[in-house]
């Protein structure tokens, strides 16, 4: 696999959050999802940064909705995982599964002298 295609942990979490959110994925909802489901605190800035990076890599795409008075007139910027992004996620998942294969954390503790 080409270098640069490996996903960082946070990038994986953001992509997964987007997949879980479906069509409601934007900066704040991604942040909320990370806090709520992954129990991972994240600032809006770090979420934005990761989304931008993923977009640059072509793993997500974005579009803007209509201006929203609830948001002071600012439109939402929605994100969606691209096919490439899904591919990258799947690769990461398989890679982790391969590494986890045969590893039993509780057994290792007991077998240690």
């Amino acid at each position, binding site marked *: 696999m080409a270098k640069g295609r490996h996903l960082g942990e946070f990038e994986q979490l953001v992509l997964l959050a987007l997949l879980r959110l479906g069509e409601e994925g934007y900066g*704040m909802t991604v942040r909320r999802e990370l806090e709520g489901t992954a129990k991972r605190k994240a600032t*809006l*800035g770090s979420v*934005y940064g990761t989304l931008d990076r993923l977009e640059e890599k072509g793993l997500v795409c974005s579009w803007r909705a209509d201006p929203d008075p*609830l948001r002071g007139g*600012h439109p939402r*910027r929605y994100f969606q995982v691209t096919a490439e992004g899904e591919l990258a996620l799947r690769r990461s998942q398989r890679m982790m599964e391969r590494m986890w294969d045969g590893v039993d954390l509780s057994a290792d503790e007991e077998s240690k002298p």
Partner: protein
Amino acid sequence: MTPPSLADRILRLLVHPEIAGDAIGDLREEYSRFKTSELGGLRANMWYWRQALGVVSRYGLRRGRSGQSEGMPPGSVRPGGLGDEIAAVIDGLRQTMRRFIKTPGFAALPVITLALGISASTGVFTYINSFSQPFPGVDGGGLLDLYRVTDGNPYGSFSYADVLDFASAEIGALEGVAAVQTGWAASIRHEHMTEVVFGQAVSGNFFPLFGIEMAAGRGLTPEDDRREASPAVVISHQYWQGRFGGASSTVGSTILLNNNPYTIVGVASRDFVGSSASVRPEVWMPLEQYGIVYWARSDIATNRNRAGPQMHVRLSRGASRNRALAEISAIAAGLDADAPLENGTREVSLLPATWIHPSAREAEAPTTRIMLLAAVGLLLLACANVANLLLSIARGRSHEIAVRAAIGASPGRLLRQLLTENLLLSLLAGALALLLANPLASRIGSYFARPSVWGYNVPREVSMDLRVFLFAVGISVIAGLLTGIVPAVRGSRPLVEELKEGGERSVGGGKVSGRRRLPGMRNLMVSAQMAVAVILAILSGLVLRTLDSVRRIEPGFDVDHTVASFMSTSSSGVTVEERQGFYRELALRFEGLSWVRAATVAAQAPLSPHRQRELRIDGQADPVSVTTAQVVPGFFETVGIELGAGRFFALSDTSGTPDVVVINRTMERRYFGGRSALGRQVWQPGQEGEPDRGFEVVGVVEDAKVRDFLADHEPVVYFSYPQHDYTPGNALILSTTIDPRAAVPLLERELRAVDPTLVLVNALPYTEVVRGFQFIQRRNAEIFTAVALLGLALAATGLFSVMSLTVGQRTREIGIRMAIGAHRREIIRPVVGRALVAVAVGVGAGLAISLVTARMIQSLLFGVEPVDPVSIGASTVVLLVVALLASYLPARRALRVDPVVSLRTE
């Protein structure tokens, strides 16, 4: 509940509009959910701020979502508002920092040069700032010093009786009035030895009023400050650590102070070192207790016309200084009515409490002003030096700047960019200077720890506070602007034509023909540096000559082989009546030692304070105030004062024989009309109805320095000790056959063998005492010489680098000319010549200005005129020689280059 709009504004200001919009929208949406949740308004707002600042820190001051200005050269910008401007500046700073880190040499020289200049100014300012600092270890808010103003002295003290009245009066504007008597010495008897300590006597409310923290035990209280109170003292932290090993058992223990028992009730905190910068007290005692011992034989406690302790006050919360002054003045007016003074009314002044006495500040004002001027001169020199350097660097960056201009950077933007870089340089220099400034200031202060017969001179403590820091920052900014403005203005006007025609030549970096206006500016800088260097050199020459003059002063007695020692018998059980005999025996004992040529006793040692007395001179109606001394037979011979006429005191001059005095030449000249005073009378007015006492002049001695080594000779009357009243404390003066420095420990050992309870206050050779009097001149010589040498080095290196650059730029020209047959010297001569013209102009201007500056330092001079041919001549010669070398050496290097090589490298 509304989200903080300031956070939104900051986002819009510092972050790209798209990102700011997304962030504000998301944040507001989430914030609206908080309304319905349990999160309170404050927590919601804090959350909002945290998130907003997180976006700013990630995206702030960048352009675009990626943060990378890919494909866009640094310094270019999209049209935008303040945010873009700030972004440009900060981006420029980032790049400058990166450049500094990559090529530290590029920044090192200007930073170090500027740092030297800034540190000199900051060091001097730190020293000057110490004059307005309150004493350490106290809560300084609202603390004021109360002085009595008289015609001759704006910083006088009220009498002790007045102080008590002020302290007990109802003054609404004041929290309290405290009094301090400074500068007494006492003996403390320990198990194996007796030593002298210095202390302050304070009123009972001193410790609470000043909020002095205690390291152990308690401070003195108003309860302690009563005659009938059990004697209590507080000791200093340093004394506690040094003498008692910091033992906790010290508090509550008893010490013998002048043979009287006192209980140590507390140890002051480490920070508190007394309320006077001239003394490091080891002991604090209540004023009333002090009065019992020290004022017993005088009327200081009751006589309203005698100066008493110094007063410190603290303003009540909310009260103003003016109101306090008005209230105190009203009380003073009441005292004037009830107990008028002999020498005028009680005029009061209230000034911010300072550790260093204001009279010291005023006395040093001329010197410190001049020090500051010298430091500023050095700073200007450093700025000119660095400006020249930056001018040259700007030449080398002309290509880069031209490219920036070509893609849209305005001259204003380029100027801002360049100035920002210089500012960063100068702020770095300022940071470095702050490190150097404190040692510098301490060095100036250390001169105050000079020896004297009393021995307790302490170094002037200096510390940096916010004011010093702000000064350093301010000076750095000014220096940055000064150094940067010309190179920045020049550099920001890139010549695109230069680019077009230059091609590879320009890319090579600054090898465009040197016949621009630039050398003119460079030469101007050289002249400026030379001028300042000359001024500093001449100032240095003048103070060096002053030091030399001071060193040549004839003391009138044998300084080189004499040791002074000052001791006290107060704790040895020697009664006042026995004192004469005791000291006579002591002197005889010392004369028996092999290393002592002669020994004598005096009430006051030479070069120490002497009592002034009102005496009536034969043939004159009114009494005059004259310096007097009390000596024993053998004194003049021991210290080496020569006899002019008549005789010295003899053993026969005792209380049973006619009263005699010996006077000095100045006394004879001034009061006896230049005729012989032998056989004439000097009268001491009788006290309280007693008849005047007449003394016959039996001898006239040559003038010797009695009180102040630097002052002119004054009239002196010497009394024979056995015939005249004693004063407590005595000086034992030895004329030694060995090096006096080696004699001091022998003296101490011998005294301890006589009586371990004998208190030696101080012992030192007179060479040290004399050195102590010269401390100001020595300090000035060191400071001004250091500044002058530094200035000379800066000017020389500045000239050297300018010459190197100029010659370097002409290498091609030299190559061509040499190739067609011109002699090397013919080519170099005009170049060096132009530089030397700049030098000459600078030196000439400097000489002219120094005529003015030299007069400004007249107060520092001794024995030398401000327009001193030696100083001027020597400085000029030194400078010209250095300048010649600095201009010739780079030129010589160029002469050696093979013309073919130089052409080939083009």
